């Protein structure tokens, strides 16, 4: 059973030449109920569980969260918002606004100085350290600087989440090869990150983030190192994952990307404060200036 079958048709778009063709592929994915049915069968209980969780409105809840590094000023102040299960969010803000810090709290790389964070219905602030790995396996992260393991091949980098989760080696190869095909790197299986271009590294990082079928995907400036054409293609990969039920949070500077995802919510950070605490704004926000929201 090809558990990643729904991705493959979307993945084909990476190999296609133009964004328009990519859009067609996404449209095809949306229309292809048969693909979805296969996904439902392939992922089995995982997707069924996810659909049930979808009934649970909020997958993430921040309340009055503050974060301070050392004894300096607060990097994040009084941040409160909720993320709905299965929704797509953009997080915008100028450099130094606190986007990366907020994402770090989201993917449990950092604990807040104050406030409360609920993740998957549990208090993430007081979560015992021993339980963090279980939570982290439910979150896919695309780091701003990719954080690929330089001496591992593209294949091994993508396989990492499965191996960390204890998936038997015999069950690793097929999904990894599917992911490589999905991101258009089938011919770069053995390439090490230093030999990959920025865009290729980005795609490996994305494949690694989504191979474990995370419930939340967090991407920090995922299009910052690629050309606009590739940026749009990558965004469509996130979109196709979102359509399968994953909550997606993308931090970006790229104003042009914001309008590309239908029904995406937007959160804006300014000097560590969330300007849109409800996260319910659609792009373009009604009170946004006509230019770049940064």
């Amino acid at each position, binding site marked *: 059973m090809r558990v990643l079958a729904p991705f493959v048709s979307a993945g084909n778009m990476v190999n296609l030449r133009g964004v328009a063709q990519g859009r067609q592929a996404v449209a095809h994915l949306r229309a292809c109920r048969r693909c979805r049915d296969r996904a439902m069968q392939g992922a089995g209980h995982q997707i069924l569980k996810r659909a049930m969780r979808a009934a649970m409105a909020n997958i993430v809840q921040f309340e009055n969260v503050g974060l301070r590094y050392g004894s300096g000023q607060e990097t994040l102040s009084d941040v409160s918002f909720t993320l709905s299960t299965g929704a797509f969010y953009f997080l915008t803000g100028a450099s130094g606004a606190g986007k990366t810090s907020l994402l770090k709290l989201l993917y449990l790389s950092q604990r807040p100085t104050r406030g409360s964070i609920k993740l998957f219905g549990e208090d993430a602030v007081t979560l015992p350290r021993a339980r963090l790995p279980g939570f982290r396996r439910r979150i896919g992260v695309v780091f701003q600087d990719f954080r690929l*393991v330089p001496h591992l091949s593209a294949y091994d980098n993508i396989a990492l989440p499965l191996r960390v989760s204890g998936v038997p080696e015999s069950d690793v190869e097929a999904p990894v090869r599917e992911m490589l095909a999905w991101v258009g790197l089938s011919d770069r299986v053995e390439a090490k990150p230093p030999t990959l271009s920025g865009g290729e590294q980005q795609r490996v990082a994305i494949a690694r983030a989504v191979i474990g079928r995370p419930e939340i995907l967090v991407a920090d400036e995922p299009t910052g190192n690629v050309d606009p054409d590739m940026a749009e293609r990558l965004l469509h990969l996130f979109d196709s994952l979102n359509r399968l039920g994953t909550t997606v949070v993308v931090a970006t500077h790229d104003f042009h990307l914001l309008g590309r995802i239908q029904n995406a919510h937007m959160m804006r950070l300014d000097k560590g404060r969330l300007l849109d605490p409800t996260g319910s704004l659609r792009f373009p926000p009604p009170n946004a200036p006509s230019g770049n929201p940064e």
Partner: protein
Amino acid sequence: MSVAMIASAADRRLLDESRGTRAMTWIMAIMLFLTVLAGALGLGTLSAAVLLDRQLAGRLTVQIVEAVEAKRTNQTALALAALRASPEVTRAVEVDHAKLAMLLRPWLGTDGADPDLPIPAMIDVDLGVASDAAVARVSAAVRVAAPSARIDRHESWMSPVRDFMAMVTWLAAALVLLMAAATAAVVILAARAGLETHRDTIEVLHMLGSTDVQVARLFQRRIAIDTLLGGVIGTVIAIGVIALVGLQLAALGSDLLAGLSLGARDWMILGGLPVAFAVLATLAARQAVLTALGRYL
């Protein structure tokens, strides 16, 4: 989650191991070389001490110190009879007078052979049971038969040698323990340095949901291999040195030094040292990594 001590083949690629033989291997080779030498010294002196104990434990010398030759001869005969009648005694033989004269020649010169010189008669005695009680019973029997008799236990005049051997054995054991402690310390430092070197990879692994035990397993395996490889190299060289020293000792032909030999059990213990050190290093690495990772989020 598996808690196996050794990582899987895929896990082995996680830490960059393409740098060939590492300094750790050679440090471990030196550690094990010194440890095996110390161990061999300890085991050798232990077996020599055991042999010495066995040889001296049941041995006595009875001297009949009597100036009048007739009385000396009479008391010697009575003492011999009493000794041979004693159930504890397995052998009682008078030392030949000519042999005694020869032993005394370095001190007395040719006068030692003078029949008028009152040289004590001596009886060499072996006991079946070397207990203090048996020695006391035999001594009492001899003194009844020969009031001029003096009884020396060989054990008592060789005790300084025995004490020295015991000290060397303990010293060697302490050296082995010190080397083990030093090995553990080196491993802890190496593990901490390794954590620092691979900090980025470890952070990525943590973010992907890796547990501390999974990360520790990577280091355990690597350090266990380094220790085992270095240990085998050091042990093989040390065994060669020990064999060479053994040949030199054998060529000396000394009864005392001949006891400094290693038996099959001793060789097995020495051969097991690299494995024991590899296990020790593995556990030390595991503990060091888990403690250090506890400070990460």
